[in-house]
């Protein structure tokens, strides 16, 4: 089964490869893996005023996993946190023409998005709490 042109393009010219500092304000980090194939994917978002202003990824795995995460970072930019949570793996499958045996790569990308969003929300909550705690009632 050959890779589609879009997968090859993302593989050869990955968009937004790299990383942010985990501790940085507004950064959410998602690290997920696929136990079947051993691929590991790290996806990070940078949020300002509830909007994702930047996204980065690092994926160690097959071409489809790299393409799925590369595409995901492109789609994430400019979306609000809520909109980002609605990205579905099936949309990635469609866009990249992934064959059935590679669908789990798109699932991995969706999981990574969710993990990054959760991490961001968790961080935002605890920051809110510390701020609230620091302000005398």
């Amino acid at each position, binding site marked *: 089964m050959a890779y589609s042109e879009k997968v090859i393009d993302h593989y050869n010219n990955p968009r937004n490869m790299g990383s942010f500092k985990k501790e940085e304000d507004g950064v959410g980090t998602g*690290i*997920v*893996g696929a*136990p*079947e*194939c*051993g*691929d*590991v994917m*790290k996806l990070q978002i940078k949020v300002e005023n509830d909007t994702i202003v930047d996204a980065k990824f*690092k994926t*160690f795995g097959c071409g489809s996993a790299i393409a799925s995460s590369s595409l995901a970072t492109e789609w994430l930019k400019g979306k609000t946190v809520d909109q980002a949570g609605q990205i579905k793996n099936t949309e990635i499958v469609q866009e990249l023409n992934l064959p059935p045996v590679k669908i789990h790569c798109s699932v991995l990308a969706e999981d990574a998005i969710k993990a990054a969003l959760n991490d961001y929300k968790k961080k935002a909550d605890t920051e809110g709490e510390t701020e609230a705690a620091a302000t005398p009632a």
Partner: protein
Amino acid sequence: MSEHTHQPESGRTRDLPMARSMCWHCQSEMTGEYFCGRCVKVQPLSKELDYFTCLNLPRKLNLDEQALEETFYALSRSFHPDYYATKDEGEKAISLGNTALLNTAYRTLKDPVQRAEYLIRLEAGSAKDIRTSPPADLFDEILELQEDLDEFRSLSAGESDERRQELLEKLQADRRTLEARKAQMEDRLQEQFGRWDALPTEAEGDADVQTQKDAVLAGMQEILSNRTYVKNIVNDLVAATSPTAEPGRSAWH
């Protein structure tokens, strides 16, 4: 008995889920054998047939390798397409189909990791919701190692030799540590094999046994997943740090 007989040793009746309950040729009732008892025609194996049953082995993980080989060779001979070259198209097709299924069954059960993965899939009806927690520490470690690997790959020989050498030594040490860890995981998997095999087999509907089964399956699933991550990073380390090295030989792939 002639050398080319296709009839397996008689006196063995097993409960095989065959594709049909009647012989496709003479329509006589089948009692669960690979060959019709009346007209001796080969019967198609059912796609539902599980590999353990196909090879006449109990659903255990420490299996009798000699029995596996022997049954495989005996069945291979009886299904072999060469013996059906002069038969009609229907029999040729059955011979091919059975041989393909038998080969897959044998390959899967011969390898301990594939055997365990197959058993988990077989038993998944009961343990479908096995979701192992993602190994966060392991992921962090892998990502860090991959960064070092990226740096190492980007340094061409000749320039920055000192840093290159330093990284090479670190990566080789990491590789040894991870290989040792992979071996430990395989030991732990082996322990789970023993635990699985010790569970009673004839305990349909026993909730207590089912709970124990699920626990062993989940334990194996977790070890297998983590082992896959470690195996991948070890492969990357081997490829980057010793391009000419032969991969180690082991029963575990």
